[in-house]
């Protein structure tokens, strides 16, 4: 079955599954099988922001004052986030658009992926503002071992699905021999399974892979350092929370069987593998924290605290897709981070450069003594 950019068949799109039904033809939103995706689109559009609106001039001075090991933490996180958003700015489109069957979901995928490209553009904005030669930083992303290790795990499921769908579209069902890849079995079952695992893996990317980096950015800003960066990260975090809700809806709809009964069986079969994807990503993020702090910690954070935080949010995210929690950590070791992650007071007007300093004061006032128990000053 080959892909058509305007499917000429007549069918009732309200009866199509989310994926692997008819190719979408008319982009219409007057009727929706899953109205949640239309609501996500509206919300994402209401979040629209441009990186250039955030003034980073004081970040440049701050960056020069950071100790060397702190610069390493800051730049490494930027590189890792750049990798993640490079993947996310294209992959939902490349992997999911050829197989999506609902107009509202198709447009959500495009809107989601578009917002990731804003994140990518914001990293260039930040890097340009703090260093003289951005090339050194960008070039390291494809060679730095700590980062490429992670690139493999975030892209493997996408790449597999893309390969299988392109075989399906050109050669149809059956077992096909691909040079260097061997025999690949293409059945509806194997395609749907590859899809489910891809969404599971993206869900984990959106759910936990950014959070070590977020925590470091906000820990700098707690010391009134790199506040322009923190403002951008707040905006990114708000978007990521919405993307996460998008993937959670896809997974939960699939598992419910209400969208496609066969998907419920596949979700059941893949439960263990989905769990492993969570745990493997959490372990990688903990390793990442150790790599960040290899030459020294920063005020308020160390590898151990960040590791506990990763375990904690992994538990929260697993529960949201109906999995049992994987880690013992029962409490958020850095509860102050939530005051930064909350989006209600995100403003982007450049003349409001003071706003985050104001926030720092406010957050400090809101914290009780016990919140600082884990905060090694």
């Amino acid at each position: 079955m080959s892909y058509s950019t305007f499917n000429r068949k007549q069918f009732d799109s309200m009866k199509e599954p989310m994926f692997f039904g008819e190719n979408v033809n008319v982009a219409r939103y007057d009727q929706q099988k899953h109205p949640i995706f239309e609501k996500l689109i509206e919300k994402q559009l209401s979040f629209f922001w441009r990186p250039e609106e955030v003034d980073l001039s004081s970040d440049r001075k701050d960056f020069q004052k950071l100790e060397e090991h702190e610069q390493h933490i800051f730049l490494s996180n930027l590189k890792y986030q750049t990798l993640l958003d490079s993947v996310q700015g294209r992959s939902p489109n490349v992997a999911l658009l050829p197989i999506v069957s609902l107009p509202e979901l198709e447009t959500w995928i495009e809107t989601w992926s578009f917002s990731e490209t804003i994140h990518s553009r914001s990293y260039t904005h930040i890097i340009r503002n703090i260093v003289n030669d951005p090339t050194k930083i960008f070039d390291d992303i494809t060679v730095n071992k700590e980062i490429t290790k992670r690139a493999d795990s975030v892209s493997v499921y996408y790449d597999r699905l893309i390969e299988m769908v392109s075989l399906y579209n050109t050669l149809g069902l059956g077992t096909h021999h691909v040079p260097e890849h061997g025999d690949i079995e293409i059945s509806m079952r194997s395609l749907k399974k590859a899809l489910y695992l891809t969404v599971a893996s993206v869900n984990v990317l959106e759910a936990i892979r950014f959070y070590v980096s977020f925590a470091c950015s906000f820990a700098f800003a707690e010391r009134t350092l790199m506040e322009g960066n923190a403002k951008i990260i707040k905006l990114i975090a708000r978007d990521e929370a919405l993307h996460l809700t998008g993937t959670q809806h896809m997974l939960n709809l699939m598992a419910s069987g209400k969208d496609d009964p066969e998907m419920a069986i596949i979700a059941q079969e893949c439960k263990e593998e989905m769990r492993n994807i969570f745990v493997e990503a959490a372990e990688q993020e903990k390793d990442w924290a150790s790599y960040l702090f290899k030459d020294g910690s920063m005020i308020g954070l160390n590898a151990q605290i960040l590791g506990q935080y990763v375990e904690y949010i992994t538990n929260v995210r697993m529960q949201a897709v109906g999995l049992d929690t994987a880690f013992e950590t029962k409490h958020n070791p850095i509860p102050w981070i939530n005051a930064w992650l909350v989006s209600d007071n995100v403003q982007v007007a450049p003349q409001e450069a003071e706003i985050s300093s104001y926030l720092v004061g406010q957050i400090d006032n809101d914290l009780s003594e016990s919140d600082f128990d884990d905060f090694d000053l």
Partner: protein
Amino acid sequence: MTTLTSNKPDKIRDKVHRVLLGKKQILVTEDEPLLVQLEREGIHVEYQCREGYCSSCSIKLLWGQVEYPFEPLAWVQSGYMLACCAIVKSDIEIAFFSD
């Protein structure tokens, strides 16, 4: 006039319900979502958006009734509730995911 409006049943804003959490018991009203009222009692609940779209504040609802003034964007698992936007409508018992 004033007496009339304040007597209307839907204007009664001071309904109080009990929230059981482990061995603790907290009194809450229907004026605000559960999250802020728990925080005021010094109970930390995980949150992020505080607007119903991220699911970070999802907690177990063991029994009792809650309502959402607007439909949250986040998926609500059965047996769970979103503390940031749910209004407590009866006595309830809750638990955190870890318990």
